């Protein structure tokens, strides 16, 4: 049942709305600071970035110059026709040739700029992703506890993606837009200050309109985003609980709720899209207003001989392209905001407090004997909520320690501390007499081998998954480990044997088989200390007997920590730690603890409560 896994359930950030970047709502906390920091990532590519900017400016400049030159040809034609003389085609040819060269250069520069920027942007993003991944390996588990996987994933993919497209497009677009605006105004001024004034009059109106529309649509986009989030949440919940919904015939209620939220989404959605869709026609209209004004007024001027027709043509052209950079800048400004917000989230990850660095003078451990002791250990996941106040445990070389207790008693905490996933608040934990904080984490963890309750396997072959325990293991060793874990048999019955590719959810083998693979992995790692975290709870009891035998063999001469619910599996432990509500309430041997008649005794006796009352005592028969 892949869908019922609690972990790894996808979480969705609602997709960002709308064309034209108007749906981008997020605002960065500190635009300037983030911008500066993001710009820092371009520093290694400074030379190329400068070239990109220069090319962008040149390409735009040439693009702006060309209508004016085109106008020269028109003027020549018009004036010749008006004057009744022959058109000077040599002159026109020359003009068109210059124009062709200008077009070509403009295109080349534009191409070069985007070509180089592709490399710069993608390389920058590559570095960013890499840096995040490196950072993630250095973050303490506390960080992961407090966040969903979806949240972290979205920072590495969605947020980095936003930055990527922003670098690729928006940055140069911004430059182009500004240069275009400036260039067009200069060109227009050069042609006719009077007509320029007419066209520029449109400017404040354009700005105001853009602002008003953006503001209105923003409010609907917020609504859209909220409803979309709610809808996605409902879908996620209903589909994850598909089986339950079916079992209790709740399809109708679920669909009703869905429709209700979907309706709300529709209502806010179409309004948002409508209002943001207005901006283009509005700008177009303003353009046309300018166009008409220039045509009429310019025509009047040309007729009076105060202006050349080619100039009017150029003027018309410029006025048409005048509002474009303004709308562009408005949308880029929004994109930039979103980009900075994304960058901020990424930097937030990069700024997280890392695990304490390894001790540089760490003693080297070749061979561990596997003696573990906790001395006065104090620990809590939260500072004000201590789990262990003063914990003392002494485990000798080769001993088996059983950790028992009801669900949620905090049994895995012990493991977390042993492997130094968390650092203790006070006291010390030693392995072979060495404080584990003195050791390199890598060396420490080399000593341990563990099989966790949720079987983690990755998307690869069965062989690779077993060899994860020791990367340099030979084929023979992998098979041996599988045999020892009683996994060899089922692997060989698979059509591809050891080469079988586990799919994404590893749903092509059963839960018990997965467990066997993780056991094989631990066996191959051949650690000095074993940690079995309810390792066999979803393997059937008969297989479990086999595994126990393999384990017993493996546990020979090794210190082992076994966490299990089944009392039968821990009876022959050398030391039993009884946990309840996060605390170790009792410790000792099975007999000793029974004699004590405390929590353990009650726990143990309750196992047979139902048996005794019904009189069907299995023990009388065996």
């Amino acid at each position, binding site marked *: 049942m892949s869908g019922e896994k609690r972990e790894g359930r996808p979480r969705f950030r609602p997709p960002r709305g709308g064309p034209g970047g108007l749906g981008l709502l997020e605002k960065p906390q500190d635009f300037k600071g983030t911008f500066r920091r993001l710009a820092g990532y371009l520093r290694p590519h400074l030379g190329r970035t400068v070239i990109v900017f220069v090319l962008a400016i040149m390409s735009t400049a040439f693009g702006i110059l060309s209508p004016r030159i085109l106008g020269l040809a028109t003027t020549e034609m018009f004036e010749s026709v008006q004057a009744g003389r022959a058109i000077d085609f040599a002159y026109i040819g020359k003009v068109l040739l210059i124009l062709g060269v200008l077009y070509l250069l403009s295109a080349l520069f534009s191409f070069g700029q985007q070509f180089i920027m592709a490399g710069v942007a993608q390389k920058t993003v590559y570095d960013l992703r890499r840096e995040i991944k490196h950072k993630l390996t250095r973050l303490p588990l506390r960080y992961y506890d407090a966040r969903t996987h979806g949240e972290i994933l979205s920072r590495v993919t969605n947020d980095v993606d936003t930055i990527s497209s922003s670098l690729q497009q928006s940055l140069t677009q911004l430059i182009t837009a500004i240069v275009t605006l400036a260039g067009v105004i200069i060109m227009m001024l050069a042609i006719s200050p009077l007509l320029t004034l007419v066209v520029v009059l449109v400017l404040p109106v354009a700005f105001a309109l853009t602002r008003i529309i953006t503001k209105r649509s923003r409010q609907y986009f917020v609504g859209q985003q909220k409803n979309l989030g709610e809808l996605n949440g409902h879908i996620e919940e209903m589909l994850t609980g598909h089986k339950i919904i079916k079992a*209790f015939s709740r399809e109708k209620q679920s669909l009703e709720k869905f429709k209700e939220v979907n309706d709300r989404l529709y209502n806010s959605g179409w309004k948002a899209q409508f209002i943001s869709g207005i901006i283009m026609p509005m700008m177009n209209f303003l353009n046309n207003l300018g166009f008409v004004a220039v045509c009429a007024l310019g025509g009047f001027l040309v007729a009076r001989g105060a202006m050349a027709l080619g100039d009017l043509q150029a003027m018309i052209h410029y006025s048409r392209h005048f509002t474009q950079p303004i709308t562009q800048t408005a949308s880029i400004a929004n994109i930039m905001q979103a980009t900075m917000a994304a960058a901020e989230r990424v930097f937030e990850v990069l700024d997280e407090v890392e695990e304490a660095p390894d001790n540089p003078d760490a003693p080297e451990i070749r061979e561990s004997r596997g003696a573990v002791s906790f001395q006065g250990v104090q620990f809590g996941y939260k500072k004000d909520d201590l789990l262990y106040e003063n914990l003392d445990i002494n485990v000798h070389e080769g001993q088996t320690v059983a950790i028992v207790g009801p669900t949620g008693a905090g049994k895995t905490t012990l493991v977390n501390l042993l492997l130094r996933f968390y650092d203790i608040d006070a006291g010390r934990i030693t392995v072979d007499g060495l404080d584990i904080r003195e050791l390199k984490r890598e060396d420490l963890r080399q000593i341990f081998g563990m099989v*966790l309750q949720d079987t983690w396997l990755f998307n690869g072959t069965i062989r690779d998954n077993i060899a994860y325990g020791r990367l340099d293991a030979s084929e023979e060793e992998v098979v041996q480990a599988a045999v020892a874990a009683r996994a060899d048999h089922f692997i060989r019955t698979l059509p591809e044997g050891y080469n079988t590719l586990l799919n994404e959810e590893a749903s092509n083998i059963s839960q018990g088989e997965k467990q066997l693979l993780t056991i094989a992995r631990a066996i191959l790692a051949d650690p000095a200390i074993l940690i079995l975290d309810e390792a066999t709870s979803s393997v059937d009891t008969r297989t479990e007997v086999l595994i126990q035998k393999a384990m017993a063999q493996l546990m020979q001469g090794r210190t082992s920590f076994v966490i299990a619910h089944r009392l039968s599996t821990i009876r022959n432990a050398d030391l039993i730690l009884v946990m309840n509500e996060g605390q170790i309430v009792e410790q000792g041997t099975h007999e000793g603890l029974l004699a004590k008649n405390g929590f353990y005794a009650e726990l143990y006796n309750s196992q047979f409560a139902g048996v005794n009352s019904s009189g069907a005592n299995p023990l009388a028969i065996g």
Partner: protein
Amino acid sequence: MIKLIRYLKPFWPTVVLVLVLVLLQTLSQLYLPTLMADIVDKGIAAGNNAVIFRIGGTMLAVALVSVACAVSASYFSARVGLGYGRVLRNKVFSHVQQFSLREYNQFGAASLITRITNDITQVQMVILMSLRMLAIAPLMMIGGIVMAVSRDPNLSRLILILMPVLALAVAVMAYLVMPLFKAMQAKLDKLNLVLRENLTGIRVIRAFNRDEYELKRFDAANLDLTKTAILVNRLMAGSMPGMMLLMNLASIAILWFGGQRVAGGGLQVGNLMAFLQYMMQIMFSLMMVSMMFVMLPRAMASVNRINAVLDTEPEIANPAQVREAASGTKGYLEFRNVIFSYPGAEVPVLRDISFRASPGETTAVIGGTGSGKSTLANLIPRFYDVDSGSVLVDGVDVRDMTQESLRDKIGFVPQQALLFSGTIASNIRLGKEDATSEEVRKAAETAQAREFIDAMPEGFDAPVAQGGVNLSGGQRQRLAIARALVRRPEIYIFDDSFSALDFRTDARLRQALKEETADATTLIVAQRVTTVMDADRIIVLEKGAVAGIGTHHELMESCKVYREIVLSQVSEEEIA
């Protein structure tokens, strides 16, 4: 794409309206250059100011019509686009809800969620963009050509040459870029996969010191993605300036040849200027088409994913002819020679299972991993259909009942106790919508949940987070049991539902359940022998077949498999 278009049906009138509006908008837009030409040729050339301002006024009016059309088009297209999204979403969601577990598992929950959310949003966006931009393109092109020909048919022959060139450029671009976009998406997915694995397996990775190894795996995926991304972006870098250049060169050609026509007296200068503008509009519409190529591959992938869902017919449907159970028969369960296999499996998981259970009886199913215990339980509420044989409830084949009436008889407690966001009470009431507080309290009490519920400050109104993540496994399991109890069903199914409970709670719970379920049939799937020992009937499954049926005592005598299970769990030390 075509398949999904049919859901546009209710919107056809609006779509037509949008197209008409867009047409009007385009026409008025196209009319402007003609008016401009008139200003030049009739106004300026003749030096007639009155004409200039009169035509100027007309232009203003035309511009107003244009903007009015555009705004209304935006309004209606927004309603169509989003409305379509709403219809499609409803359609897909309700379709998925009808999926049996077979289809559900075929896709996986995560994938289904993405399809209903992100994929539909993608398609909705494309519809909207198509109405706004793609619809304009052909209208603009045709209109532009008509207007250009009307200005000067001779010069229009240039269009015949230029258009195919540009169209070819667009086609080549699409041919090159589309597969790359697809590949990029796949590589992004791969990167996500590696990262997701890294997050779920963080403890294992650290315990095995495999950080370096995982970094390498991530880096390989990252580099692979980056390379493709650079390639795609560089190709795109060539496309835009390339097309602009083509357009600009075309305008040079028009000026050159047009100039000669002007010299020959066949064309007025104003018309040449208008012609140039029409040419630009034609080219521009082609470029708009090319922009769709960026959106289309992603949208197509989405469309395919949605279609895959819609094309999957739920295997289980209500029968045309519903059969009712004879009145008075309540709580009878029977398996008759049931054979069942999962899709694609070579061997059946359940082989020839037969047994009967009557009200008041407890039937336990025990067996190893993969022996088919849970599958057996899943057949009763008809999560799957049997290959052959039949499952009968109250003497009626489950395939002859409606799914609702069948499931109303059943209180199902799944292996994974999944809860929903809401309160403790709302979660229990999922079993029976109109349950009184008294009933809810009683169910919680029987399920041994009272203790922890009372310990919460809000009691039964304590909030439950999605999936119940704010409760412990044992607490979730007890609430799932209460949820089934509150229905007071004819048949209880406990699918390994006590595994997260400690022994003490387990024993107390079973004691309480015994009274509660006295007149119902109870089916318990379990791993622990202690859980099943006092059942009226124990079914021992081994590799999908019945290895023995009987009471504990009978099986201890007769069934080797059962004896092994018992011995492995409880008695080692007592025997010794």
